């Protein structure tokens, strides 16, 4: 109970910081603008003539690829650069609680932006009769994907006190997780690697699991995959933080 209270305290402070600085607003506005642009202009939302959000969800991985590290890069680098990590970790709060609290706050911002895309759901409902179950699954998948990318950013931001470095490393890490299961890449791999290897690599990709959600399949396997990615990355974050305190 106490540890929950500590996590909440940290998360509240983080959210405070996000809204006191332009980070949250800029992120939300840019996310909405870009997602609107890709869905309607590039994805041909209206030309498809179908009541589904395929042309909406297909862009999420690519947007998260750049936008999530932009939010996540400051998680720990900023704390180290300003030296506030010394305050944080000498309070009666465990490093683990701080990591989870900070992660949850940033994830809440991502969730909020996702929530603000709801008008697009109302639009397809108005235009036709979409499969609401599939749309719900799509949102769950998207939120989990955002969380996975964010946890990786948390890890890379703990590595460096330089935000630019942490941003680039994070983008590269997320990109490889996305590409490993992206159809064009898997097709290319199939030409020279054995199929089971391609399968194995694809199983590690966030795309494979994200796509399962988009097809409206709510499989615990995919769910567990994302949770494991987050748990692993956050655990690694704690190892890195312990590492540079130890000197």
């Amino acid at each position, binding site marked *: 109970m*106490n540890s929950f*209270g*500590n996590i909440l*305290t*940290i998360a*509240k*402070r983080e959210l*405070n*910081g996000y809204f*006191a*600085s332009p980070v949250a607003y800029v992120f939300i506005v840019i996310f909405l603008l870009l997602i609107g642009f890709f869905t309607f202009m590039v994805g041909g939302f209206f030309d498809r003539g179908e009541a589904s959000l395929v042309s909406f969800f297909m862009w999420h991985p690519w947007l998260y690829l750049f936008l999530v590290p932009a939010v996540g890069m400051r998680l720990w680098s900023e704390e180290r650069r*300003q*030296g*506030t990590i*010394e*305050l944080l*970790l*000498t*309070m*009666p*709060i*465990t490093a683990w609680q701080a990591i989870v609290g900070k992660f949850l706050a940033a994830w809440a911002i991502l969730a909020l932006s996702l929530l603000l895309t709801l008008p697009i759901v109302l639009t397809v409902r108005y235009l036709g009769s979409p499969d609401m179950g599939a749309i719900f699954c799509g949102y769950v998948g998207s939120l989990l994907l955002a969380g996975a990318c964010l946890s990786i950013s948390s890890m890379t931001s703990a590595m460096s006190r330089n935000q630019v470095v942490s941003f680039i490393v994070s983008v590269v890490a997320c990109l490889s997780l996305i590409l490993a299961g992206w159809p064009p890449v898997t097709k290319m791999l199939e030409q020279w690697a054995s199929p089971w290897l391609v399968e194995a690599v694809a199983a590690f990709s966030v795309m494979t699991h994200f796509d399962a959600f988009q097809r409206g399949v709510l499989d615990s396997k995919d769910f567990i995959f994302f949770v494991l990615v987050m748990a692993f990355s956050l655990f690694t974050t704690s190892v890195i933080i312990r590492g540079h*305190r*130890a*000197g």
Partner: protein
Amino acid sequence: MIKIQDLTKNFGPKTAVNGISFTVERGEVLGFLGPNGAGKSTTMRMVTGFIPPTSGRIQTGEYDMLAQPIQAKRLIGYLPENAPLYSDMTVHGFLSFAAEARGLRGGERQKAVARAIELCFLERVVHQSIDTLSKGYRHRACFAQAIIHDPPILIMDEPTDGLDPNQKFEMRSLIRRMGEKKTIIFSTHILEEVDAACTRAIVIDHGRIVANGTPAELKRQAEGAGTVLIRVAGLTAAALRQTLDPLAAARKTAIVEETPGGVCARVFPQTKDSDGALARALFEIAVKSSWKLEELHTEEGRLDEVFRAITLSDTAKEGRQ
């Protein structure tokens, strides 16, 4: 209250702190002195649980910092070096966060924040964003964070750095006042602060304790400690020497200055802790010889002299090795 045993910290091949042991009790204010890079901040970071020691034990209250860090950290208020702060918050928001992180909720929290604001003279900037504060106010805001939960142990790394003279004075008297009921460790480069606020001082050099004692004890180690300065009008240096040379309590007499109006001399005692015996002897001579005495006082010894003597000789030793 705090017990440190054989604390050692290596950063790679470099030893920043090398086997430090000391204890501080409730009601003590311990001053940490030492040249730049001596290992003061590193020691404090280990005591507050920010970095783990390479070896050694840290006991705070009844808790071991390494085994029960959360309970141990509850007892401590910490002002880190350079007063780090969350620059995206207001002073009030920051202090509320600090109080909440210390487990204070609701009315208790508000009371703690109000008390800290008052103690640290922050009323003027309560709703100001931290990144627009001046350096002194940043320092005070961080200090407010350290005392917000009224901790029994207070650890401060250069608490008067960046404060104006009035605030320095306030801070010293605050430390002294709080030191009556708390256990305080603070580091400083300002030697007067040792006199003004400490009950005991430790000098660290190259990660080792090179002196540990009350300010008076430390000062007694100074070269000039215990010497008596005497100034007599209408007397020549030669006459003064002649009178003082047979004196048993004096080792030697050094003339500081001789003017047509008189003479000023420093008399060195035979033994260091003569407790004013030399001054009394000189006074008797002066009365007997009807000297026109202008000045007579026993030097206490100066901390900066002691500090230089201890840390420089140590540096020289390291250099030779």
